[in-house]
């Protein structure tokens, strides 16, 4: 009993918001544990229903919690929290407690660092790396935050490194605060003066002060952080890492899905099956009901069935031969318990065996 093409150490579930990524990740996790692989599902913000189904509450926040299932191997769940992860990173790389404290209490960090675009995405992969290095699971399934701009997720490590790139920030800020601050060469100094002039005029002294303090406090952590981001980038490109792209049904979702799958490949990632989730079934044999009180509703379902079928067909055309496509029909209601979740997982796995 294997997971077929999904038999990898690390599965990353990606896709736009509202396509059912989290439920599918949990379903696969259960199916994986059933197949005998100890499995960890890492997720951000599951619905109450899913938490109930898995029997995990807030105790799983940032901490692996065992799901009470009868599977051969164990299934654990972690609910990710970006801020806690960021805090822990700082704790790890700060040279001493005082340095860590300087960052924690910095206003820029407290108010704004958590809102930086890409932080949530980056912290997901960061935490993943942390757990993956511990090697205590046979398989890890990472559910990613919704990415309307799906590329945010992929680019997160690069962006964080760029943002923290002390070079740019130091050039922008340092000479202004420390006269004769070590920057050599007249053009550079001029450019730096220009930037700081603009920044000061636009932002005022206080924010600049806070930002400078933040980057100063961060400087000793910087090398560790940068190296870490590089390792995270590599982990996402390992042969044992497979991306599962989940799409909503309907033709208008397909271009986004294909775009993302292509970008993933171009940047050296391995893309597994594309999963079209929540597909309305094709409607047949409504003859006797055409004039009844059901007519209007059935017409809608007929349309939805055809719309989703069109979407799947156009997706099939875009995929090359051998690139698998998984179709998961819309359920009457979302999975309520472990049995229904596992059934969903099996439905998926059965198509990639």
């Amino acid at each position: 009993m294997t997971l077929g093409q999904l038999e990898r150490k690390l599965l990353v579930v990606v896709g736009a918001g509202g396509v059912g990524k989290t439920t599918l990740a949990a379903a696969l996790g259960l199916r994986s544990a059933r197949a005998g692989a100890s499995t960890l599902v890492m997720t951000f913000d599951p619905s109450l229903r899913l938490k109930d189904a898995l029997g995990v509450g807030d105790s799983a926040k940032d901490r692996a919690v065992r799901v009470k299932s009868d599977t051969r191997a164990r299934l654990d769940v972690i609910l990710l929290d970006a801020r806690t992860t960021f805090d822990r990173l700082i704790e790890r790389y700060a040279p001493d407690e005082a340095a860590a404290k300087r960052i924690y209490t910095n206003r820029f960090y407290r108010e704004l660092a958590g809102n930086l675009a890409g932080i949530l995405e980056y912290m997901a992969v960061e935490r993943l790396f942390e757990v993956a290095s511990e090697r205590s699971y046979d398989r890890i399934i990472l559910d990613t935050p919704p990415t309307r701009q799906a590329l945010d997720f992929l680019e997160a490590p690069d962006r964080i490194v760029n943002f923290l790139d002390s070079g740019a920030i130091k050039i922008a800020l340092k000479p202004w605060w420390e006269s004769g601050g070590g920057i050599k060469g007249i053009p550079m100094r001029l450019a730096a003066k220009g930037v700081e002039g603009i920044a000061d005029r636009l932002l005022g002294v206080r924010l600049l002060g806070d930002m400078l303090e933040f980057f100063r406090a961060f400087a000793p952590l910087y090398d560790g952080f940068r190296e870490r981001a590089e390792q995270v980038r590599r982990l996402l490109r390992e042969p044992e890492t497979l991306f599962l792209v989940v799409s909503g049904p309907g033709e208008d979702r397909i271009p986004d899905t294909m775009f993302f799958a292509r970008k993933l490949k171009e940047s050296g990632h391995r893309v597994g099956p594309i999963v079209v989730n929540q597909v309305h079934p094709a409607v047949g044999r409504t003859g006797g009901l055409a004039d009844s009180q059901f007519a209007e509703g059935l017409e809608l379902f007929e349309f939805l069935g055809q719309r989703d079928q069109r979407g799947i067909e156009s997706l099939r055309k875009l995929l090359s031969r051998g690139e698998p496509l998984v179709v998961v029909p819309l359920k009457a209601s979302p999975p309520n318990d472990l049995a229904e979740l596992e059934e969903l997982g099996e439905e998926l796995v059965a198509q990639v065996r």
Partner: protein
Amino acid sequence: MPVLPKLSKRQLIVVTGKGGVGKTTIAAAIARLLAAAGRRVLLLEIDPRESLHQLLGTEPSGGGIIKAGPKLSVQNLQPVAVVNALVREKVPVGILARKIVASPVFQHFAQGAPGLKEMSVLGYALRTVEGDYKHKADVVVLDAPATGHGASMLAAPLLLSDLVGGGQIGDMAKNLAQFIADPERCGVVLATLAEEMPVQELAELVALLRERMGRPPELVVANGLYPRFPEGRTGSPVTPPSDDPIRRKGGSETVRRPAGPLARSSVHPSADILELWRERRAVNDRELKRLRGIWKGPLAEVPLLPLDRGPELLAAIEATLGEELA
């Protein structure tokens, strides 16, 4: 009081909600309703992957302002371009200044100062309605990013005006924070599906708007509702006709289906479809009820329609929303 006349008085209407709930369609429908009521409307899209033009049946904006009907224009706004324009405007344009704005160092800085992009979009809207630009509008309808980012967009001026001591951005932030907080000038419309996660996120957003910003939304739109399932006279659901050997019982218990490839492409007998319909509508009803518990203000219900994304769908949603809000 009906909601539409109230919305017509606003200068900025921010439409946000969880990803995939049809925010853009709702924003476009509201823009068209306001234009039909005689207001000059600018509909702003921020997502670099344009989709409004599909709905409106226009050319893509490519950053420019496109006419989309009487009194209605549409623009795909690139926040980075607005930030740069703002900097160029505030800083005397020497060769050096221009070079700096174009330099990676400055770009990092502009992206790194959080809230700057969000605020520049709001600033652009404010200046449009205040008549600072060549293109005039009475009201800007903003198709804001999905919830998380949409909330931080609304909160950005407040956050920045607290954080930034002074400077032109600080002043602008203060100004914008007042604009956003003024219920006479700025309205917030939240779009959602009547499903579990979208309603959960909506609850968080309503609380955030109320508590952190002191301004509740003006309207919540429950989009994509399945039609009501026909009920029998006794109030119990009609038993689906049995033209199908695997006929379901009348209850609402979940029906286990055989898993695997079978379920993939088989044509479903109508009793299965009725079951699916009834259950999906039951989810809608349950979540609408929960929504009502969270949100006592105006709530518009918009059905799922058998139409592809395009001008026809938009016209139908505009008509429904017009009736709901009149």
